[in-house]
């Protein structure tokens, strides 16, 4: 039904002003795409080509920057490290949050509301506030420069959002479904694992996408907790790479292009989850 309303709307709105709307939007699109255009064309230029002509297409089309970038930066290693960190922390946070959210959404206990409010509020506290004690604590536990330490920190930092999202979603699942399972003698853990979680597919995907993006894109925590060359995740690697090649712009741009492709591909195919997920913390439910 909303589709038909949408169609009617398009017709009723087709007026002179729609031209202005397109001009306005196209201007925005231009502003968004120009830096990306420059990144891509520059990445395929030779140094000489770049210094002579920064605006035009690459002449000749030069793919050698890929090789230089792979030699100058340990892209595969950084990538692997980022996958371990993002995968590990998202997995840990998902398990822990599902258990917690189940209690918030389906059980009665004292301090339920204030506790949920506090957990939700933690979402907005900038990580820089926690950084110093976390570093000193992990140092004492001999866990700096280990993936375990960083995974624990990342999992903790994304958990408020996960709990918030899952609690809201669990609340929307009709209680009758849970009730009938209870009559069949299901335990509370059964209800979470066999009923609520399988019905929460969209919320889980949304949550995983957002948390992955958070960990994947972080620079500050990784810079502090994983200073060792071998353990660097992609974002720290990219930062080091960028300053190493700040005189060789085409190679630097190629490095940035290579670092962005995985997320851009995911976005292309899973746009819905990115958009839903990233606004989920701001819009209720």
């Amino acid at each position, binding site marked *: 039904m909303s589709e038909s309303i949408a169609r009617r709307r398009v017709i009723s709105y087709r007026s002179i002003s*729609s031209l202005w709307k397109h001009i306005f939007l196209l201007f925005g699109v231009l502003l*968004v795409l120009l830096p990306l255009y420059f990144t891509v064309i520059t990445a395929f230029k030779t140094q000489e080509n770049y210094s002579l002509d920064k605006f035009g297409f690459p002449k000749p089309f030069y793919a050698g920057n890929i090789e230089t970038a792979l030699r100058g930066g340990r892209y595969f290693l950084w990538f692997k490290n980022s996958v371990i960190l993002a995968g590990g922390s998202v997995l840990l946070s998902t398990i822990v949050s599902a258990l917690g959210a189940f209690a918030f959404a389906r059980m009665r206990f004292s301090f339920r509301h204030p506790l949920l409010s506090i957990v939700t509020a933690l979402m907005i506290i900038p990580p820089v506030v926690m950084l110093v004690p976390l570093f000193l604590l992990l140092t004492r536990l001999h866990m700096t420069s280990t993936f375990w330490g960083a995974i624990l920190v990342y999992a903790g930092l994304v958990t408020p959002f996960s709990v918030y999202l899952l609690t809201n979603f669990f609340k929307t699942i009709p209680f009758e479904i849970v009730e009938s399972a209870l009559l069949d003698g299901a335990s509370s853990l059964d209800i979470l694992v066999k009923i609520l979680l399988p019905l929460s597919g969209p919320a889980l995907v949304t949550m995983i996408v957002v948390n992955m993006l958070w960990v994947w894109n972080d620079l500050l925590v990784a810079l502090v907790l994983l200073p060792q060359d071998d353990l660097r995740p992609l974002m720290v690697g990219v930062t080091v790479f960028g300053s190493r090649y700040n005189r060789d712009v085409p190679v630097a741009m190629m490095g940035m292009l290579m670092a962005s492709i995985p997320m851009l591909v995911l976005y292309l195919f899973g746009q819905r989850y990115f958009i839903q997920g990233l606004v989920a913390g701001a819009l209720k439910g």
Partner: protein
Amino acid sequence: MLRTHKLIPWLYLTPMLFLLIFAFGYPLVSIFNFSMRRIRGATGPFIGFENYRQVFKDTVFREAVSHNLILLLAVPIMIVISILVAVVLYERVKGWRVYRFILFIPYILAVPVVGVVFSNILQLNGILNETLRVIGLGRLGLDWIGNPDITLWSVMGVIIWREVGFGIVLFLARLLSINEELIDAGKVDGANWWQRLWFVILPELRSVLEFYTVVSVITMLAWVFSYIYTITRGGPGNATQIMELYVYNFAFRNQLPGIASAVAVLLFLVTIALIIPVFRLRASTEMEEMA
């Protein structure tokens, strides 16, 4: 609600609580403790408010604060842009989904990547100035990230470039969830586009707008480290020094975690002060919904 033994809920909550106490609880308590000590290694002697006094005396810190405050100017700019774009998209111009897809791309890109890309584009003999020259506007060319007077503004431009897509998508999502008849009614009443925006649409956006404002303010005060670190490292000189970088430098370069903790405490208190009104608002709308 499930009927369970009184302790069962806490069993489910324990792993979450453990993780949150590790990542938030312990650090948030410790910064207060650390900020009152002269720390070497893991701890040090109690010195009262000496660290705070040091911080407030430091002109670099004052500069950092003023730069964060200047960055706050990005908030109204982002609000205006994202509401205008969201409303135009909401009116289902042809291809609105494609527009939304493209305008959201910058927000998907990682900040360090965006930072490195723009630091190349904005160099004195970089792509932006070259482009300006090609289209005959060479006189507008500036040393975007080399001239201390304008570098902070350049960084703000980059921040807006990446972050505004989130605002657009957020306001659009809210608009798509409100009753269309309400807005159509405004049309029948003969209100023009701007009147409809002001009297019909904006009031509907109010709660999201407040949330977005608070989150953006917190972002500008304490969540822009990656931009600064990758574009300028706080330079030239201290021209783009910000509080986060100050914390980072004092904790991990100068080995003075006490000073860093004092600044962390200040950032924490500011954040709390900003979050409380949002929660009040949310609680009150929840009450209304229940009534």
